């Protein structure tokens, strides 16, 4: 077993514990328990999330030391790195915005898609292409991580808007603000996501110009990233100008996230071209 795998499993274990506690916290059956009423369980969720982020950071560091470069290339590395950054940013939001805490029951299972995916992959060493020495890679990837984490936070709230159409959803998210506020908060995350998405595209274009001699070439990943940006812009125009029912609002956010998800974890691996770094 390679060095990073035990840390990865431990980190995912901590995320799993956080998920279970978050689900326990919203379940109406336990609503009468003092620990739930006082929302003390949220500290446990926060603690397990922080533990997970720390353990995943160790996993990434171990792998970095083992193969000599950061988590930039293979799908295994990308998923591990995203699990860490999504967890880190969600921890910050969870800590600073208690109103969105119950939405962890939507956010954490989405992260579990990545968590269960990474466990199916081989942690084989990857090759670090010469074009990845460029400093803009850090800017591009860092901004992309913030963008995806903001979208994920928006998805959590979008899920709340949709699930609240059911009785069970209303009971689960009884401690959250009204739909107006949840919707507004979700779209504020979308606004910030648009800023970081735009910055990510700019930094990516600068990197592409240096690395491959063109700033934009409609390669599959670029096209997919542009479509995500466009869909986000369309969503924001609709939300700011028309009356959008909460369910539609939620579905629009989930649609943007799904496209972004496909861009991150699909497009780079169906194209053998530049973005995979093999040229």
């Amino acid at each position, binding site marked *: 077993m390679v060095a990073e795998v035990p840390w990865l499993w431990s980190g995912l274990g901590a995320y799993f514990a956080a998920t279970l506690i978050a689900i326990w916290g919203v379940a109406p059956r336990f609503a009468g328990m003092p620990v739930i009423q006082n929302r003390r369980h949220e500290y446990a969720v926060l603690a397990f999330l922080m533990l997970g982020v720390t353990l995943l950071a160790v996993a990434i560091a171990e792998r970095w030391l083992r193969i000599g470069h950061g988590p930039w290339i293979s799908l295994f590395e990308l998923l591990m790195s995203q699990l860490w950054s999504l967890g880190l940013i969600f921890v910050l939001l969870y800590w600073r915005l208690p109103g969105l805490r119950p939405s962890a029951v939507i956010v954490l299972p989405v992260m579990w898609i990545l968590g269960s995916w990474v466990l199916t992959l081989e942690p084989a060493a990857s090759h670090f292409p*010469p074009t990845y020495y460029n400093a803009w890679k850090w800017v591009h990837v860092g901004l992309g991580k913030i963008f995806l984490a903001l979208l994920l936070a928006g998805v959590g709230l979008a899920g709340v808007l949709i699930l609240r159409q059911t009785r069970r959803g209303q009971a689960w998210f009884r401690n959250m603000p009204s739909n107006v*506020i949840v919707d*507004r908060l979700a779209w504020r995350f979308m606004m910030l996501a648009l800023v970081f998405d*735009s910055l990510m595209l700019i930094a990516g274009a600068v990197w592409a110009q*240096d690395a491959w001699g063109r*700033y934009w070439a409609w390669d599959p990943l670029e096209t997919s990233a542009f*479509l995500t940006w466009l869909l986000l812009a369309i969503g924001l125009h609709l939300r700011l100008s028309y*009356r*959008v029912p909460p*369910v539609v609002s939620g579905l629009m956010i989930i649609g943007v996230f799904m496209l972004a998800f496909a861009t991150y974890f699909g497009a780079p691996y169906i194209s053998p071209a530049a973005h995979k770094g093999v040229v």
Partner: protein
Amino acid sequence: MRCRCLRVLQMLNFLRKFASLKIALLGMALLAIGAMLSYGNPLGTPVWVLVAPMALLAVNLVAAITTNPRINQQPGLLVFHVALLLLLLLATVGRLTHLDAHLELVVGTGFEADKLLEINAGPLHPGSFDSVHFVQGPYTVEYSPGMQRGLTHSHVKVKTAAGAWEGRIVGDDRPLVMDGYRFYTTFNKGFTSVLTWLPAGGAPVTGSVNMPSYPLFEYKQDNRWTPHGSNTEIKFWLQLKTAMNAEAHWVLDAASSSGVLIVTSGDKRYEVRLGEFVDLPQGRLRFEALTMWMGYRLFYDPTIQWLFFVAIMGILGLTHYFWKKINLQPWMDEKPDTIAEQAGKPLDGIGSPSSGKPSGNNAPVTTAYLTGEKH
């Protein structure tokens, strides 16, 4: 005077028709379709699938910036939309003036415009390479186990404005930039046989025969050439000895490489080493040197710095707008913040502003809870 005012009003009314959000949404939807059709640059997709929606969006942006107070009276939003318009204009200028090309430069030779291959230039490209002077020097390429290409260090000599020659090292993400032209090293590089041809009764000519890319085509280092005034083709096969090792780190460079040239003319085959002659029916051939060639990608677009600057300005504008919007209304304020909400229409679902109910149960929600203050 009154007539002029009327004309301005008529023009504004005309522009307002193009400023609608519906046109913007249509333009964005068409651009999304165009982008999907352009996915992966399939052959045969016409450029207008992108150009037409961009043109529609440009018209819509001009109209909206001019007539829509929601845009032109909010500095951040105005800067963002002006930046979008400028990006479209700059991208157009860039496509009209750009140049994309490839070239193969043999070590020791200089750049010449007539060496460019696969040229793709915009109709307004200036086409002048008067101030682009450089000479290819030796280069090295590092390889990792598994034949994974690493860093390229390509030495070039550049002629400065003062006329002096200055050495530089380029490679991978460090292009050689001269007069806006950007030369990028590529994976396409290989060996060259420098040959002198002495035709029977003619003047000697020295030239080079580039072999296919190495190590990509390590197994077929061959090429062919027909001497001027002859019908017989001469075939060359270069038997190379390099540091190549698929299972270890190694460096590709001319200094640690050697080769024997196998020359075939008609049914005769000759082995020629460095400095040796071979007598062929059409003349005499001398193997002068074994060196290398580097394949460059050439890129020219005078707008790239402006694109970057304008894009950043646009993002600053957008950030300013969002910041102002978020600061104007606290995160927990129940007051409506969109046009639809301001129109007094209730939102569906739980806790709509019109109902005044909290969030679907009997637990009141406080501002402190959402914003992280003590509770």
